[in-house]
């Protein structure tokens, strides 16, 4: 019988980091911050686990459907088309500018919205995993992000189709979006971890987030650009919403615009501030999360 000794596997599961011969597994609060950082690094290192779990969730969702995850693309397309036609009339904006704008907005918004919303139930959903063996908790956050990223990738296809139909061809300007996308991902990661921590402790948080996003969908310049609000007070006010800037640093380059310095500063500031706050909260709460489930 061929067997594999897991001790030979040079630390592939989380436990090895702490459980190495000659090293104490855990001594009381040996810097909770270091443990939290280690947990996050281990989570990235154990990419196989979240890659496979996230991928399987999508696969199983569409296993017996003929076109599978293409449904994601189609439903986003239908929704975008209906909304697009409606708003082209309402706003009286040129369709060849408005439709690509709307598509990229919707695609980014749904990615953001569902990642954070499903993020808030990460730990409760993963409770059977968490209570069965030790694994860095960040794995489940990454799994949630990865699953939503796959969906994002499918829905993004419709943007490119719409953009090309309306004469916006892919080009080097996409490179400007690259750092924006990284900031976008970073912001999603901390926000979903923060939501997960808060929601596992306070069960109302999930409902609060859900409601907040319904309002934010209209309050954030997604269906409209801030300038369409007339250039006065309203235009100023909607730009106070940091979500606008987080989205704009990706959206603007994709539709042949350039993000402003303000967009960059706010999106970057959000990432730094959010990561810091969440990291400290995670350091404080990480060891308690299995008890709270």
């Amino acid at each position, binding site marked *: *019988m*061929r*067997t*594999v*000794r*897991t*001790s030979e*596997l040079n630390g*592939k*599961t*989380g*436990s*090895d980091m*702490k*459980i190495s*011969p*000659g*090293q*104490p*597994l*855990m*001594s*009381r609060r040996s810097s909770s911050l270091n443990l939290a950082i280690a947990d996050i690094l281990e989570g990235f290192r154990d990419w*196989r*686990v979240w890659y*496979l*779990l996230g991928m*399987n969730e999508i696969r*199983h969702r569409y*296993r017996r459907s003929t076109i599978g995850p293409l449904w994601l693309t189609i439903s986003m397309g239908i929704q975008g088309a209906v909304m697009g036609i409606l708003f082209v009339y309402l706003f009286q904006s040129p369709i060849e500018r408005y439709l690509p704008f709307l598509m990229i907005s919707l695609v980014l918004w749904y990615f953001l919205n569902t990642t954070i919303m499903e993020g808030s139930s990460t730990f409760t959903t993963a409770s*059977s*995993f*968490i*209570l*069965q*063996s*030790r*694994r860095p908790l960040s794995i489940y956050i990454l799994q949630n992000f990865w699953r939503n990223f796959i969906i994002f990738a499918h829905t993004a296809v419709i943007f490119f189709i719409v953009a090309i139909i309306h004469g916006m061809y892919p080009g080097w300007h996409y490179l400007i979006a690259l750092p924006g996308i990284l900031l976008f991902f970073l912001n999603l990661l901390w926000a979903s971890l923060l939501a997960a921590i808060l929601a596992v*402790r*306070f*069960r*109302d*948080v999930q409902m*609060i987030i859900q409601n907040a996003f319904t309002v934010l969908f209209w309050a954030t310049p997604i269906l409209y650009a801030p300038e369409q609000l007339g250039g006065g007070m309203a235009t100023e006010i909607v730009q106070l919403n940091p979500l606008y800037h987080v989205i704009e640093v990706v959206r603007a380059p994709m539709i042949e615009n350039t993000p402003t310095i303000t967009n960059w500063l706010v999106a970057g500031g959000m990432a730094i501030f959010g990561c810091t706050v969440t990291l400290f909260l995670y350091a404080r709460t990480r*060891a*308690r999360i*299995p*008890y*709270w489930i």
Partner: protein
Amino acid sequence: MERIITDGVNIEYPVFDASAYSLRHKLLLNHIPRPAKTTQVGGKLERDRHRSLVRALKNISFTVRDGERVGLIGHNGAGKTTLLRTLAGIYEPASGIMQTYGRVMPLFGLTEGMHPDATGRELITIRSFLLGLTGDETAQITPEVIEFCELGDYIDMPVRTYSTGMLVRLAFAITTAVTAEILLFDELIGAGDASFVEKAQARLEKFVERSSVIVLATHSQDIMRKWCNRALVFEHGEIVYDGEVDDALRAYSEMVAAAK
């Protein structure tokens, strides 16, 4: 050598009732005092104004060396599962020192990560990754697992088409294909129908032999006598007896009789 060292480990966790889980309670209702009382069922339950606190393990100190097969005895809620979860690294102690040397493998449930729509073959991969194997190692154990669980062509069918017995066979075969120094059992795992039991038994024995240490919680005295050479008796989260299995079982039944 020592495989497990615990010294003064305390585990306590809050139990929030429905209202305490919510923000409303945290924000608005914290000033309402609750009666402070303790109870003697399960772990020690303590209440203060803000929450209920279960003291699941209290001042646990013991050392397990190579070759020791430790059985955990105690009534429901005495702290056996909590101790196993602590040894597995799932719960981190509120205070005290807990060290383990070598790979720890918790076997609390065999069906972790088993999605009904996944095929048997996919499940081997999922479970292997969850157990910490790499892709290569998974490929190595796969043929052996398939051969052992005797599922034939069903291995490429979704597991929702499996009977319970078939699922258990598969789960059992995957889990026991791997080896770790420290095995933690919450009730001994078993597999499938009568014809399979002997084969499973032999595999389980080999699996346990390959490990250095096992810690096993069970309510069966037979299993305890067969598998263990040392026993810890728990009561209300404390170790009240540590020694030979027969003596421990006797001490435990006296304890139960005295309580009646």
